């Protein structure tokens, strides 16, 4: 049950504990100071006592690690798990969540210094990546069949992912489009909205009438359109909204003043 390495280092731990107690009490320790790490009473010479306690802690840690890993002996691990040999080639499917987590950590760090919004975005990315990563890791080990694992994972995550991603996509489109329409002039806004609507309608009509068009082409067009919308939205948000002319009577009404029926604006 207890491995050789564990016994050795646990013995060292016990020896260092005894040595620390002896050293503490013989160098001025009093009450239960050396027993309670100085909580009640003195521990004597701090440096010597500290070194011995640190060595004891290190020995205990090493002993626990060794017993956990069965003395780092692959044969012992295989015996414990009742296997002919320890499996070392379990496939791990490619995943982009580690990269998302890394970018999230980076955004968190930058946001901590520069802007709270970036910080929150970073934390959100890290949380999202950790949840997805955990599910991927679980699914990888569910069965020996990669396809079955993928199905299992999707069965749990797709009902969450699809609505969330859909809502996010709609939110981004609405936000970006509204920024663009609020930045350009009134006439340009009507023109932009009309042209974009016509393009969407035209694209859908072409796709419906010519289903032979490649999926890759449609996907590329979709990505390019989304990028254009996103870049336009960011640029528009940076530029700010256009000046809006407020009707005078509304202002007066807000202040409770009579307008007299002659409206400006």
């Amino acid at each position, binding site marked *: 049950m207890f491995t050789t390495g564990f016994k050795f280092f646990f013995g060292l731990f016990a020896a260092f504990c005894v040595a620390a107690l002896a050293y503490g009490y013989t160098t001025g320790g009093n009450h239960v100071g050396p027993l309670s790490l100085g909580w009640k009473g003195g521990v004597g010479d701090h440096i010597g006592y500290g070194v011995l306690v640190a060595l004891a802690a290190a020995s205990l840690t090493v002993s626990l690690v060794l017993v956990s*890993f069965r003395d*780092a*002996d*692959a*044969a012992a*691990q*295989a015996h414990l798990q009742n296997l*002919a*040999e*320890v*499996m*070392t*080639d*379990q*496939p*791990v*499917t*490619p*995943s*982009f*969540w*580690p*990269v998302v*987590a*890394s*970018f999230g*950590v*980076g955004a968190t*760090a*930058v946001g*901590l*210094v*520069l802007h709270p919004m970036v910080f929150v975005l970073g934390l959100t990315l890290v949380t999202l990546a950790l949840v997805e*990563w955990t599910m*991927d*890791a679980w699914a990888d080990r*569910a*069965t*020996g*069949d*990669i*396809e*079955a*694992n993928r*199905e*299992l994972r999707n*069965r*749990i995550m797709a009902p969450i992912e699809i609505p969330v991603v859909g809502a996010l996509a709609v939110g981004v489109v609405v936000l970006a489009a509204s920024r663009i329409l609020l930045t350009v002039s009134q006439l340009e806004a009507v023109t932009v909205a009309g042209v974009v609507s016509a393009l969407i309608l035209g694209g859908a009509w072409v796709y419906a009438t010519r289903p032979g068009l490649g999926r890759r082409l449609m996907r590329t067009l979709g990505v390019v359109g989304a990028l254009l919308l996103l870049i336009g939205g960011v640029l528009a948000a940076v530029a700010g909204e256009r000046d809006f002319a407020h009707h005078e009577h509304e202002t007066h009404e807000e202040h409770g003043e009579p307008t007299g029926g002659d409206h400006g604006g």
Partner: protein
Amino acid sequence: MTLTEPAIADSEASLAAGGADAPSASTQPVATHPVLAQPFVTSDATTVGRLFVVASLLLALGTSVIGALLSFGRTEAVDPADMFGGLNAYFRMWTLYRVSFMLLVVLPLLLGVAMAVVPSQVGAGNLAFPRAALASFWTWKIGALIVVVSVFAGGGWGAVDGVTGNENDAIALTLLGTAMVIVALLVGAVCVATTVISLRQTGMSLLNVPPFAWSMLVSAAVWLFTLPVAIANIVVIYADLRGRPAIAFGRAEGPDIWQQLDWLVEQPAVYLMAVPVLGIVFESVGAAVGGRTSRPEIFAVVVGLFGLLAVGGWAQDYFTAPQDLRDGLVYVAFGLAAVLPIVALAGGAGELVLRGTATPERLLDARTVGAGSALKLLGAAALVGALRVVEPFDLLETAATWAVFHGVVVAGLVAGVTAHLTWPDRLLTGSISQILGRGTVVLLMVGGGLLVVTDLISGFASDDQDLMALALDVNVTFNVINLIGSVLVVAGLAAALAAMATARRTATVTGRRAS
């Protein structure tokens, strides 16, 4: 019925049906992604290792150029502060050069080599936690980006001539970027160490693992003991820096921040970069001459001892009076004892040569030359380190500190190149030619040697404490020799990158012809 049961039932039914088309865990192909997407999604340790290697070598080239500019500033041809645009800017580059070579170049270079090589050495199909390995690369990469950008934006590890509000923010970013880089390296080290501990072939005991795998296990343990101390330093500095105004540790207007972190690039922590070098040297010599050691356990003990001497979180003179720390028995003992493992390893390498086939071709093989060069540079660094802690020489807080640093750093770079010569199939798709390999190693070796010698002479010649070594107190000739050393290191790194690119292109062309 649980959620997994239908899928498991399907899987078992498929197996029971004859199994011809039933995939098994080890043979079923994992879904492939486009080549451009590979760096973002890969779960293959070799790919992650190569990413680390290429990125760190590119950063090495940039860092060595900064080093050459710093050396140029010492030639008195130009005022260093004017050259960089002020004393603060000079200080930023001076500190970036040191931190970058350690955290952005040598440690990730050797970690990348380990990720690509160690799994196959211990008989594992892949690295333990391959996704964590990928995350470690990208976290390191983004952290490195934050560090470099923030330093050039006026950040860095403190200043010497006051700071503005924006520079305070940039300094905070530099600190967070540094912490990210360290955490990423630790995650990568944990992946490698766990591979050696838990994924070894059944029947392979820890004493039987190949020397490089063992040296990486020791390195990972030492990094885990030491680097978190730097993170703790950074947390304390950051907390004080962001509190307004900084009251103790985070004072950015003076060099306090750097003084709390400089232990990382000085003895004994500087040897963190050297532990994996021992494994590469031993394996490269063995592979070149075809020899095997008779006593592998001695190598294990030697590397373990050297690793112990590289634990450096305790050697922080900011919190202890320098006289109490540097003149203390432990510090002196660590400095002197570091020579012993290098000497022992040289003896071990000699035994390999004697037991192998020591023909002139094998002794002049690029791998032997590389291993020998790395060992010589490491030996020179350890020797200077031993001289440095001997009180009568009065070399503490002088440029001799950087002689040790340069010796270890260039030894790490040479070891990285030598690893590519020893394990070309794991690190490259083709082999580096002998001439290019030898040329690269010689350039780095001579450059590193000149840096070590001139820094040591500068340390002996300086009349007072001059850690930043703004000028060599000897004569112009030595200053120029120092510059030549820096330029040779730049040339060596450029040659290494060119050699790797050539090897890769040759392999691609050969592969196309074969197909």
